[in-house]
């Protein structure tokens, strides 16, 4: 009897403890709340790393949207390709200028905004981190701001009129949509504010390759200023290009073809690359945003492969014959950037079965990023998703060509800069007009995602991107196609977003 009373009182005591609100508070043992997380420099660095993370998602995040590919298939050097017209319908619609609000590369939107969100977390917390030097804090702020500007630039180029915010949103999570000119002003001001901090190194130290440098920020600045045709900033942008050139920390490599192999990554010509890793890469079909290799390489790889040289790939991004034919025979960029498969087979005494040819096949492949045998060594995830090929975003050759073009645009002489690029390519001087420079960029950057934007900003797109000049496209490019439709799912959630008049 007494035992029973003890038992019951024990149960009663146990239960009375539940009166408190402490009882109904759960404990998260495997994670910490954000407000208590950034308590030292190591953790703040983790926050900064997370802001870089989305850079590597574009090539495969449920859609295949590598930025060079998506840009190039809207221009004239690269076709869409793939196993057939239905392989990646969204890419085909992009290729044909038939983007709709529901059929578009909307993962670019999602990824870029994810990056922006993470940059702002760094900016929100970095000042409060104890034990961190002011210099490091300022460096992190500069990196986060340049990255945010880079992500906004992607959105601005594809969509123009986008929701914009300078710190992370709070409930109900709506932002004001800015006109494309205002977005430009925000981006360019963001970069100018970073330059005032005077903290970024012209080139990052070894082991840090991939982090934002001053040269990278200058290149981004020149890109947005030139795309906006902002004459008031041409002189400043030219000055920045000259700063990079005069720093002598970057230079052209003599062998153009060597730029694209693993040993050529982060060479003296490289200003900024998106890093991919094959050894230890854990990217897999189930984890499309895990850190590892590049999917772009297998995407544009040779169907069936060439044993010993190139891995079996999916045949996207075939290079147009016209692109191969535009070079002089002496120009090392032709075979240093484009793979003429039949010629290659003849020279190396191997065979290729053209029964493997896929849609829009030309026999020309993008040598720059193609899946070479052993490019995916040491992977831990899926073999096809872990090619180590970095995406070259800014090369010193572009610095020179930017400088040449900005010089011409400001009434100066850009010949020396331009000729450095031509000399490396074994090409003679063929003039220094702006059109000559755009044509030089055409040859220099095939498949690097530059051509389409060059045509749009120079006004040449209307003439060059005509259906009659294209083997497959039935629509001419016109100014109304400059900005894609805003994804419908975004407008469904935020009805205050105005739709772009794409094609109208």
């Amino acid at each position, binding site marked *: 009897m007494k035992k029973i009373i003890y038992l019951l009182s024990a149960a009663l005591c146990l239960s009375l403890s539940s009166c408190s*609100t402490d009882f109904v508070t759960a404990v998260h043992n495997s994670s910490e709340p954000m407000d208590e997380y950034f308590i030292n420099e190591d953790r703040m660095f983790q926050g900064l790393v997370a*802001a*870089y993370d989305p850079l590597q998602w574009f090539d495969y995040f449920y859609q295949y949207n590598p930025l060079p590919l998506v840009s190039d298939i809207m221009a004239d050097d690269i076709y869409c390709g793939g196993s057939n017209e239905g392989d990646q319908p969204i890419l085909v619609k992009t290729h044909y200028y038939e983007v709709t609000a529901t059929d578009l590369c909307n993962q670019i939107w999602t990824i870029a905004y994810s990056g922006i969100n993470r940059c702002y977390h760094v900016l929100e917390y970095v000042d409060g981190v104890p034990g961190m030097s002011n210099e490091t804090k300022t460096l992190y702020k500069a990196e986060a701001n340049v990255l945010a500007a880079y992500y906004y630039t992607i959105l601005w180029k594809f969509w123009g009129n986008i929701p914009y915010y300078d710190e992370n949103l709070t409930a109900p999570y709506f932002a004001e949509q800015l006109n494309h000119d205002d977005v430009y002003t925000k981006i360019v001001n963001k970069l100018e504010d970073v330059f005032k901090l005077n903290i970024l190194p012209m080139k990052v130290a070894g082991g*840090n390759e991939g982090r934002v440098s001053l040269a990278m920020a200058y290149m981004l600045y020149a890109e947005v200023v030139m795309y906006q045709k902002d004459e008031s900033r041409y002189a400043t942008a030219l000055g920045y290009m000259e700063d990079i050139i005069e720093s002598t920390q970057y230079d052209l490599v003599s062998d153009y073809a060597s730029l694209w192999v693993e*040993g050529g990554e982060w060479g003296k010509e490289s200003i900024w690359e998106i890093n991919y*890793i094959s050894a230890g890469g854990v990217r897999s079909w189930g984890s499309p945003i895990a850190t590892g290799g590049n999917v772009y390489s297998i995407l544009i790889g040779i169907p069936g492969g060439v044993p010993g040289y190139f891995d*079996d790939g999916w045949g996207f991004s075939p290079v147009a014959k016209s692109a191969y034919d535009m070079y002089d025979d002496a120009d090392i960029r032709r075979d240093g950037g484009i793979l003429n498969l039949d010629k290659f087979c003849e020279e190396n005494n191997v065979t290729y079965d053209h029964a493997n040819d896929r849609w829009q096949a030309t026999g020309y492949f993008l040598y720059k990023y193609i899946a070479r045998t052993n490019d995916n060594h040491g992977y831990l995830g899926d073999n096809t998703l872990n090619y180590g090929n970095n995406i070259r975003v800014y090369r010193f050759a572009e610095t020179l060509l930017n400088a040449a073009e900005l010089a011409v645009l400001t009434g100066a002489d850009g010949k020396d800069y331009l000729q450095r690029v031509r000399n490396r390519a074994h090409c003679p001087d063929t003039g220094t007009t702006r059109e000559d420079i755009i044509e030089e960029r055409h040859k220099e950057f095939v498949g690097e995602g530059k051509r389409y934007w060059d045509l749009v900003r120079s006004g040449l797109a209307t003439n060059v991107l005509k259906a009659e000049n294209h083997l497959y496209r039935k629509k001419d490019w016109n100014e109304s196609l400059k900005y894609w439709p805003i994804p419908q799912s975004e407008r469904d959630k935020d009805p205050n977003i105005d739709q772009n008049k794409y094609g109208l």
Partner: protein
Amino acid sequence: MSGGYYSREGIIGGNYGLSNYDRFTLRESLQAKLFDKSSERNYFNAADFSTSASYAHITSTGISENTEYGSILGSALGMSPIETIYADEATEELYKTLYPEGYPYIVRDADGRAFTIVDGVKYNEQSNPMAMLNRPGAVYTTDKFVANASATLQIWDNLKFKSSVGVDLAFWGNHSYSTPYFLSSKNFKYDTVSNTTVYDDKGNPSTTSKTNYGSSASQEMNRSLLWQVENVLTYDKTFGKHSINVLLGQSALRSSSSNVGASANGLMYGYDPWKISVNNTLGQQKDGDRNGWGSWNSIVYSLASYFARVSYNYDERYMLEATLRRDGSSRFGINNKWGNFPSVSAAWNFRNEEFMSAFNNLSMGKLRASWGVNGSDAIGNFTYAVYMSSGNNYVFGSGAVGSENVSIGTKPSGLANPNVRWEESIQTDLGLDLGFFANKLTFTVDYYMKKTSGMLLSMPVPGYAGDSAPTGNLGDMVNSGYEFDLNWRSSVGDFNYYIGANATYNRNELTYLGDDATSLYGSSHKIGQLTRGVVGLPFPYFYGYHALGIFQNTEEINSYVGKDGNLIQPNAVPGDVKYEDINGDGVIDADNDRTYIGKGIPDWTFGINFGFEYKGFDMSVLLQGQLGAQAFNVTRRTDLYYINLPRTILNRWTGEGSTNSAPRFTWDGGSNENYRVSNLWVEDASFLRARNVQLGYTLPQDLTRKAGISRLRVYLQAENLFTLTRYTGCDPEVTGSNSGYGTEVGIDRGVYPQARTFSVGLNLNF
């Protein structure tokens, strides 16, 4: 004490040991009277004690369904039907030259026959589904212990105290392994060696080799513990015609969980399943070929409740009851943890009134009314706060000089909503129960009205906010309707029979939805979001374009013009869908021309049951159905070209006059976007289904008793014997994956079909 065993083979892959379920259970319960001194004193005079415990052991294997890439079901549906299953000898010889490296790892069945290797260039990662079924799968095991104990003490004459404790402890996990295989040139894995070359400062290369293993083993174990206590004090008193019951109580529950696992590559002792474990592997941690993981959560979820109830009954004629609950949940932030939930009810049993004594045929008569508030905390844990998650890594350094390194990145796990609180439902119910002829005929009717406020739903946060949406208290909804239940049970001589029917009519309406007053849900690949919530309409409803029919010829396209004479659908060709220009502005656009095109919630759900028993024979039938519901059939993968299509594609438009309800065949909908969200994909999901039909015979007792059996019955049973429906998908019963309020209700993304089951059974009683 009791035990049980249950075993089931899956519809797909069951005979390959890949989709099976085995359960073994053991149960024990014990009741004991500790003492009973009620004849001696009126305080602390009696106590009872009871315990129950059960143990279940479940072993199951499963195949993955509903995944686009590389799944067995996906491959079976996508593969060309004229592919052969097995490769003949000549083909095998061909494979040796076609795939010299892969051929040794070709998949074979138990008899050693080789499965066809499909063309990887054509099918990408999709493969021969029969070969995939013959590869090893994962085995899942669960061990579950449930124990309860309670004690009751009679404290005073009418005062009783009951205390109970319960524990639910579960261990579950899986072990799996993978052996080398070659399904196609796009789907294979076997040991390969790769070389990594790095360059030193002077540009000199040095090369290291590494084996990429084609085999692996992994194992994982999870543990969860949930305990709860409940203490209840009751007071029961009857004096004269009054009877009163008071209850005061309290309960609390808490759960915790942990998990640990490991995986490693490179099986050491061959591929004999009995010798495979993570220990017996070659992979090294430094190469990333050996992984371990673990997590531990001491308190995942806690719920505390206090409750009080007073009931009063006068002469079995008038009944009143009032309840008050106060619940606290760990799923809400500091200011929102607690909610108060009162309810009251009353009933009048008018049959027991004196003035009714003349109505002899009326055997039961009761009027009921109730009003009450309920709370729900059915959301995930920790959604009110922002917690950090790791694994958001990036690579710095250069592969060319071997300084490439993965840096660990950390970010918040998503957007948070610190204001999330209890969802409340206020339900009012009025009811009438009638019975006639000694309850041979019974009839019940109820009217109910349930107002839900603060519905817990994923907030419609735009993607540009940069992270995943939190849960919020988004809207208010009213469900109201009637429930009817009519039963007749009687006999004619030895013939006993019954017939009954029930029906529910429900009307659902969204009454409030935040400030922006519109929300879309349930997105589908390619065609956008399918369901929407708008005040004044059912929640959720299907939202899309209204198809008027199919353009039969060019004249119809040219005569479909706006006010200014412009073509409304200039991109259309004959065979394309004609959409209604709802706002009359001469263009079809997403902003103005989408409308209500159906809903997944039925107006009527009903059931009919009848049966009889005659001289040992018995039969029972249960029919169920629904009316007024539609299903959104998005089972066709419009993002894939080279896949098999359902038979309904035969009814497509093939020329003028062929049909007015299905567009011409196109890969991707064409420039008219024929696959956009429209009523063409919404189908009537009304159905009548024979849920259960049973026929039995009980042997005469005088026969069976000789064998020591008191009752022996054999029966034949059919489940889902037939379904009458016009729906063309697998199953009209599309409930959708219910998250919160089922924003997916009625969306058919390819539901796993319900099986038609025939069974023969035997009931034995000794």
